[in-house]
């Protein structure tokens, strides 16, 4: 047994770190570290910079332009990115659709879509959930009816993350109502400029705009936009979800948050002449979450090592999702607690680019309650923690 990284991995880490130091624009790093939203152009520029090294598509084989990273390299890369304040690139084209097209798409689809995902020509978003189909995704009702060379699509998708920036959406649609619900689903690519598509914002609990709902009213989609075979979409969707859950633990982000939290607790007056980090109650909360995180980091590495050795991560990713979301939520709870009454101000205008508004309290303090509320999503999206527990109980315990 050896719990240290190999020489090659350490050399790789140094290479990534120096690249980030040289190339990551400081305004992007600052906003990312503060937890503020980025402009679409910021994401695209950063993606193009990374792709100079062929470092954006980690789930793609090298011959398609992917990074070909090993599981450990991907993990190290993510750690360095978070540490430097590099934004996490939206996963919809790079981590979700790309692997599906590579595995199940036609040669024409591969030739057309993959390069456009890599260079950022097309921004993709995801059309899975519907208002009536969340945890029970297979019950989805958005319908695609074949009409000559087209499908006519009617229905509604929801929780479409960053859809406001997107050019295309990949959708699960119902093409048959025969048999089990899972067997009548197809995987369809839809140009958001097609007449009959409407995207509307959903404002989340803290006041931000990350997600959207998408309406389809007699939308004509060419049949060549079907991926794989009709009624086989559920298989492709499950394949895609495997990729969605890689890196789901969010260890790197959690470690950065912990660092920031300790800094805040050290800098914060406890109001009675001491520092917050020396307050017994707060220190106990902090120690507990740090211990959880230390353990989870190693759990995550154990899963990665198994993947590196060729085992596909199965229900283990559900464990990582549950523990990862709970730890990151706990950290966001401690962040708002740490700043005490200064968690109260709600000042969204302050976070707009170029705002000259004056903050209330310590810098950034007004953000933490909003982030705490926003982070409730971690235990809901990507298969709620209840659904993850069902998976573990079935796949690992055999119950």
């Amino acid at each position: 047994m050896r719990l240290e990284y190999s020489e090659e991995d350490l050399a790789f880490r140094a290479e990534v770190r120096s690249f980030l130091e040289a190339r990551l624009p400081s305004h992007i790093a600052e906003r990312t570290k503060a937890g503020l939203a980025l402009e679409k152009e910021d994401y695209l520029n950063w993606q193009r910079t990374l792709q100079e090294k062929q470092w954006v598509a980690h789930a793609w084989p090298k011959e398609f332009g992917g990074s070909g990273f090993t599981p450990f390299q991907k993990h190290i890369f993510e750690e360095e990115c978070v540490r430097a304040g590099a934004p996490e690139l939206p996963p919809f084209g790079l981590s979700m659709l790309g692997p599906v097209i590579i595995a199940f798409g036609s040669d024409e689809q591969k030739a057309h879509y993959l390069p456009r995902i890599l260079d950022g020509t097309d921004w993709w978003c995801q059309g899975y959930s519907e208002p009536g189909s969340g945890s029970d995704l297979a019950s989805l009702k958005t319908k695609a009816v074949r009409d000559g060379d087209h499908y006519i699509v009617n229905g509604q998708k929801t929780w479409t993350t960053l859809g406001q920036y997107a050019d295309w959406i990949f959708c699960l649609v119902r093409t048959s109502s025969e048999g089990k619900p899972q067997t009548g689903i197809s995987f369809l690519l839809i140009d958001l400029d097609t007449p009959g598509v409407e995207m509307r914002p959903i404002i989340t609990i803290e006041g931000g705009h990350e997600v959207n709902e998408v309406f389809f009213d007699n939308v004509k989609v060419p049949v060549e936009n079907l991926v794989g075979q009709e009624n086989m979409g559920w298989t492709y969707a499950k394949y895609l979800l495997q990729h969605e859950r890689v890196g789901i633990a969010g260890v790197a982000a959690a470690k950065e948050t912990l660092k920031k939290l300790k800094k805040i607790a050290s800098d914060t007056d406890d109001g009675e002449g001491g520092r917050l980090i020396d307050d017994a109650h707060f220190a106990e909360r902090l120690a507990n979450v740090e211990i959880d995180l230390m353990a989870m980091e190693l759990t995550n590495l154990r899963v990665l090592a198994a993947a590196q050795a060729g085992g596909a991560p199965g229900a283990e990713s559900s464990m990582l999702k549950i523990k990862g979301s709970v730890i990151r939520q706990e950290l966001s709870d401690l962040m708002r607690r740490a700043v005490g009454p200064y968690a109260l101000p709600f000042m969204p205008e302050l976070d707009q680019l170029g705002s000259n508004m004056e903050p209330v309290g310590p810098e950034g303090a007004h953000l933490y309650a909003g982030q705490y509320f926003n982070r409730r999503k971690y235990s809901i999206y990507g298969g709620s923690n209840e659904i993850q527990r069902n998976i573990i109980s079935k796949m690992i315990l055999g119950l």
Partner: protein
Amino acid sequence: MDFNLSDDHRMLKDMVSRFVREQCDFESRLKLISSEKGHDEAVWAQMAELGLVAAVLPERVGGLGGSGLDIMVVAEELGRKIVVEPFLATAVLGAGLLAEEGAEGRGPALLDDVIGGGHKLALAHYEPGARYNAAKVDATIAGGKLSGSKSLVINGGDADTLVVSAKDGDKLVLALVAKDAEGVAIKAFKTHDGFGAAEVTFTDVAVAADDVLLSGDAAEAALGRALARATLALCAESLGAMENARDATLEYLRTRTQFGVPIGKFQVLQHRLVDVCLEIEQVRSIVLLAASKLDAGDRDKHLSAAKALVGRVGRMVAEEAVQMHGGIGVTWELELAHVAKRLVMIDHYFGDTDYHLKRFQKLSKAA
């Protein structure tokens, strides 16, 4: 022992409950929290007319009661609809201080107008960097001039008159300052739970003898009572908000269908909502206890017990209710999301869970 509300309290509860159901609907609240004013003058006037300010004041000054239970009954119903009207700042804190037995100067004469809804108040007490320490007062009053900074003054941007704490040497003074007095700078903002607050600085603000409401030991004791009443009101508001969250979640579990059944059929969700219900009953008990001890010698021990438990359970109820609602639970358009925010943010006023645990430990050891 009898845990039933008296007829008077029952009537008060029903009246407030009906009023907030009819006048303080969620759609209106959504508009109000994005408006500059932050609350509805007409609704506040009606609340005053119904006697909700009077309800928390003693008969001696034209009030209708002012007991812990009066505060609890009104605040719980307001909390149920997360009402953003300035009840806490004006009635509980401000008017409560003006109604103090030892109050002097021009203050007590303002009460009629305050009770009638025509004059709003705020207590400017906590200072920057004090965190939750109510004993830290660096603002000074000397030679008729007030100087200092006050932080997160609830309703500070909307109040007509501020009750300001300051030190005259070692002596605590509570003085009245008009919002537009020279030397007063008010920076108003909204809070995550939809209320108005302000950072206020005072630079050589003229304070006449007539503006001094209380001083010395009387001021210390009055301030302690005001903060105790406010803490009780917040705990009761939280209780009402918890019951709102519980009811909304129960309704959701009954009506949301997945996998062909209402999700309330899943035992894991049943048990979680049961735990929420159990904790809310515990909160009702501790708030009742605190309300009954509002004038007792061990008042602060009980208030800290209540606020600490409310902080812990408030977070649990908010998080569980949101989780059981799933994605819709984290949307701005849903009342529950705002109820959850109020439940969590209540922990950031007048001392959080950790602060009150510590204070409870100290007071409990001494007893």
